[in-house]
């Protein structure tokens, strides 16, 4: 009797410990998404848009779909051209799909490269501290003083053989700064924790501590940051292409399509040339932000819905 009691009692804390084990970040995001209806809807809409855009952009990419047709200039939406045609008689719908795909891919590329580079710099600066940190912070200070938008525009108008890759690299050159700053601050926080000191005492190599121990601990924060950056980068790409300093003219982006509205004639009478692109970029950015906020709550235990 007494024996049974002790085993029962012994089992209870055991169970508790098991249930108290930190859930994985993906599980937390899942939980947060189920709770937040707006975020789960946004995720579904976003996946829907991306699938449609990528599939249609691949299959509608036949040369006929964006052929110049001089008999069908500036036509309104009809059964033949669902979203009408532009000033060269090209169908707007495939242009919209390709534009959305290009805009998303560029924003994704910028976010990814900026994230990787910023993480590397931030980790090194935060982990090594001292002179390394000092030198890197001075560099960051200098770059953040530069008027970012102006420099991007100057570089875009300057670089010969300019294409999508160079465009991504130019924006990345300025976008990694904020990532690096944030990750440096978080790494500094981790540095002061006991586990890093313990690892150092045990003789673990710096590289291993940085990438196998510190990085996983700040990983969720990096993902949050990148998700929110993604929407901002889509906006930046659209704006730059709108001004004419984005993608080359023959590669449509949502900014190119919105740029049709810069002509008074088009903005007044031909809504089908620019309004769909404007609505699409807005919807995509809104959805990404909603998902990003859910991810942010999942990463921050203080904000997490109980």
């Amino acid at each position, binding site marked *: 009797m007494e024996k049974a009691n002790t085993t029962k009692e012994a089992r209870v804390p055991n169970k508790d410990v098991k249930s108290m084990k930190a859930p994985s970040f993906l599980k937390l995001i899942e939980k947060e998404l189920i709770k937040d209806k707006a975020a789960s809807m946004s995720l579904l809409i976003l996946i829907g848009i991306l699938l449609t855009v990528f599939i249609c952009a691949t299959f509608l990419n036949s040369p006929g779909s964006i052929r110049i047709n001089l008999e069908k200039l500036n036509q309104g939406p009809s059964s033949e051209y669902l979203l009408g045609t532009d000033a060269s008689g090209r169908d707007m719908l495939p242009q919209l799909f390709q534009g959305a795909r290009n805009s998303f891919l560029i924003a994704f590329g910028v976010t990814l490269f900026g994230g990787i580079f910023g993480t590397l710099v931030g980790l090194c600066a935060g982990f090594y501290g001292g002179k390394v940190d000092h030198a890197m912070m001075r560099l960051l200070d200098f770059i953040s003083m530069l008027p970012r938008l102006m420099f991007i*525009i100057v570089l875009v108008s300057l670089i010969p053989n300019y294409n999508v890759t160079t465009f991504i690299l130019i924006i990345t050159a300025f976008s990694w700064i904020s990532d690096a700053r944030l990750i440096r601050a978080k790494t500094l926080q981790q540095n002061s924790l006991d586990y890093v000191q313990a690892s150092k005492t045990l003789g673990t190599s710096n590289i291993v501590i940085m990438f196998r121990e510190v990085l996983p601990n700040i990983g969720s924060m990096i993902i949050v940051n990148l998700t929110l950056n993604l929407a901002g980068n889509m906006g930046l790409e659209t704006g730059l292409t709108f001004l004419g300093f984005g993608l080359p003219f023959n590669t449509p982006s949502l900014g190119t399509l919105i740029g049709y509205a810069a002509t008074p004639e088009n903005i007044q009478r031909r809504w089908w040339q620019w309004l769909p692109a404007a609505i699409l970029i807005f919807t995509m950015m809104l959805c990404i932000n909603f998902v990003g906020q859910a991810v942010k709550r999942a990463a921050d235990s203080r904000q997490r819905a109980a």
Partner: protein
Amino acid sequence: MGKTIVRRILILIPQIIILSLLIFLLANFMPGDALTGKIDPNVSPSRLEELRQQWGYYDPWYIKYGRWVWSALHGDLGESTAYKLPVLELIGQRAGNTFWLSLMTAVISYFIGILLGILSGRYQNQFADKAIVLYTFIALAMPTVVFGLMNIFLFAFKLRWFPMGGSVDVEYVAGTLPYYRDRIYHMILPALTGGLLYTIGTIQFLRSEIIDYKNSDFVITARSKGVPEHKVFSRHIFRNAVLPVASFMGYDIAFLLGGSIFIEYVFSYPGMGRLFIESILRRDYAVVNALIILFAVLTVLGTLLSDVIMTIVDPRIRIK
């Protein structure tokens, strides 16, 4: 504090030197030169070549840079090839427009931001707060150009409440009262476009500050002393939460200048942002260089201003 400010300004000097060198080298790589814009079919290529040599087009870059710095220090930033005007005079003409537009944008942005931020924090998780949070999401997802175009479409074209663009109608005589009224009238739509978007930072900041303060010790003390709830908010919470907003003004300078490039382009507003785009397109590099350096200096001074205001409103913080 005076010492720190002087030191910060001194740090600015090497930064400006590196920046000017960087910009000068970039400009050196740019295709075309000042003569490209002046080519006249009546001038023979050999004469052009002679002019290029005379003007030092083939000198090494460091001699050119030295010459540029020397004249810049004497207040001569070169001449705009497109407008045939000294760069300083040209920028001076446009700077006023950008200044007034930015000021109006900032006023709208702070007014809305402080009002909505306080409401949102005060009534956390109630209907007003939820509506305001939704608004911040919508504004965050709206690229400036898209919002500007939608406003032009709706308010200038459909409803005809505001002009489509420009800064003033030609019929008005400069200096008269109707002239200034018309200028303000032209600024309303672009300023609203910027203000409604840039305000989200203030709203989000105030909301989270107020929510944090709600449960802080001094507020609990005030409540337990029997201070009425509305006084707890107006005297204890708002005062603490709103003060740091004053220090945003400096950082906002960089933000407003960056945004002016988009907004002035969309609204065909003749300010520095639009001048920058035009000058790039016309390969008018003397203007481009001057504008970049001006924007960079203003950015740094803005950051400094913010740090100074911060120490004034919150004595716990001291610049090191």
